[in-house]
């Protein structure tokens, strides 16, 4: 059936009352076609044709519970019965993700044991393992991991909290934006390592200097993304909120913050990655404990097996914490978007 013919059907079926006005005004523009998207199935030709310039949301919206939804797209994915492909299966994702690390491990083993590369340049996996066990037996491995993780968590918490607050101020208030954003933009432009000498002078080599550096690292992604997300909350929703009597804190908690939640969570994820980055910067330069210290110390002593150990631990820890936040992100997006 062509779109025109089906449209005719739809209009005659609207009964004597509304039919004529529909015919008269219905051609006025795309908007009126969109408005009729809930009309009988026969209208779908036009609805689909209109969905192009209007974006996909029109189709998405009708997918779930509209009994007519299965008629919506002649060839669209929504019309196809969902058959889970291999790449969508959980075990395949996990196995696929583990494949490359295993290949690398085997290649590493072969390269280091074949004698092609001297062990002073490339220790064997076994040597790295032994170095790990040795450190663990002396109680240092657990200590270093614990202290590094603690620094990351404290620095991340402080930086992200400040980033949320300042991002909210800049994103919600014009005045806050005018007063703060140029300065913060300039501070963000300072490379992280430039802070280290200053922080050591001010705060000595204790925990504070490291936590502050990590907090700086966590602050900026959160601040930038949260400010932008709050500034760009859908104006129509804001207006609807105001029209129904929401002001100030209530508008913030009912409309603005929930609208920004998905962005906030991805900002937190970015900030956490940044925190590990800044942790190593801090520990490389001034520390007596932690994974960064392990790196420098091993470098000075030529313990390449321990360098490998530290790098692998950083990779694993970073990935693990990121995965936890990733789960939280998926939950938040499902709940708030």
């Amino acid at each position: 059936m062509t779109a025109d013919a089906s449209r005719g059907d739809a209009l005659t079926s609207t009964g004597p009352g509304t039919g004529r006005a529909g015919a008269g005004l219905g051609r006025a523009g795309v908007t009126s076609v969109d408005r009729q998207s809930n009309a009988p199935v026969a209208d779908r030709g036009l609805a689909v044709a209109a969905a192009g310039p209007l974006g996909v949301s029109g189709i998405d919206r009708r997918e779930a519970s509209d009994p007519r939804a299965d008629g919506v797209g002649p060839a669209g994915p929504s019309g196809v019965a969902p058959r889970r492909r291999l790449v969508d299966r959980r075990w395949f994702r996990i196995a696929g993700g583990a494949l490359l690390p295993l290949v690398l491990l085997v290649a590493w083993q072969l390269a280091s044991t074949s004698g092609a590369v001297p062990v002073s340049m490339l220790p064997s996996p076994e040597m790295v393992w032994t170095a790990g066990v040795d450190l663990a037996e002396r109680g240092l491995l657990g200590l270093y991991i614990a202290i590094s993780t603690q620094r990351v968590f404290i620095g991340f918490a402080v930086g992200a909290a400040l980033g949320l607050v300042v991002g909210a101020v800049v994103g919600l208030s014009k005045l806050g934006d005018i007063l703060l954003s140029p300065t913060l933009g300039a501070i963000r432009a300072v490379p992280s390592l430039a802070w280290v000498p200053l922080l050591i002078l001010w705060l000595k080599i204790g925990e504070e200097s490291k936590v502050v550096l990590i907090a700086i690292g966590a602050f900026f992604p959160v601040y930038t993304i949260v400010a932008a997300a709050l500034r760009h909350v859908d104006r129509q929703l804001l207006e609807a909120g105001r029209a129904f009597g929401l002001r100030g804190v209530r508008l913030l908690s009912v409309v603005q913050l929930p609208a920004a939640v998905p962005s906030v969570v991805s900002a937190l994820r970015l900030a956490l990655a940044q925190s590990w980055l800044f942790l190593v910067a801090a520990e490389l330069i001034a520390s007596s404990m932690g994974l960064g210290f392990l790196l420098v110390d091993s470098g000075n002593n030529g313990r390449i097996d321990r360098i490998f150990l530290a790098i692998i631990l950083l990779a694993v820890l970073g990935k693990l914490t990121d995965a936890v936040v990733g789960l939280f992100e998926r939950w938040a997006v499902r709940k708030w978007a």
Partner: protein
Amino acid sequence: MPATPTSTSAAALPVEFRGVARAFPTAAGARPVLRDVDLVVEAGEILAILGPSGCGKSTLLRIAGGLDRPTSGRVTIAGSPVADYDARSAIGFQEPRLLPWRTVAQNVALGLPRGTPRAAGRAHVARLLELVGLAEFAEHRPREISGGMAQRTSLARALARSPHVLLLDEPFGALDALTRLRMQDLLLEVHAAEPTTVLLVTHDVDEALQLADRIVVLGAEADTDATPGASIRQTVVVPGTRPRDRGSAELAELRGRLLDGLGIDRHGAARGIQSTSTIPAFPY
């Protein structure tokens, strides 16, 4: 006149537009959209606003609700000027504008007047969802319902406020013909139960005839070098009491006159059908 004193509860308030004009600034200077709008909507009246797309119907409604301000002229509700986002009115937007992270029921609850006790609010929301036929979708998210269902949710949200003035911008635009008729009847039921002043923007002449006490047609002068900006071109008092017979001859004649006013050919004259004139034009 439309609303007899007995059918008007204390809740409904009159709305008055005096010399209202609205121009939007553009790069090429101010572009007038509305001008010289003078209109008194009586307490408890249902007034339909008809007009071609883009003539300023939504703008007029937004001004009545305090979502926009006129460039000149004044709008009052019960004699006092409309405040920004005036609490005496509730608006059903042209788009559903639902909060995507809230369920249908929670979105409707947003319309409840502040300070509604929890239990009473929940019961009211449930009743409204029942009325608009969405009881089983109460726990769905806006993205899980159809466009027409979203629009009904938005209507329920506006009704939840039990406002003195109800502003509805094409509330039935996205509905199929049958649901549309059902929702029209629903609006009349609600209006009879809790009288309120209703300003209803619509594209649909028959809908206006079915629901309204009075219809105003908004439009610009056809003349190309006339003053730009839309104003009230025609005011029609709809005869009879609601619910009206959808097929009556009287209404058919009014329909013809309104379609003429909107610049739409009725395709009758060519076949020698004269438009009879038994109903005097307003004002009598």
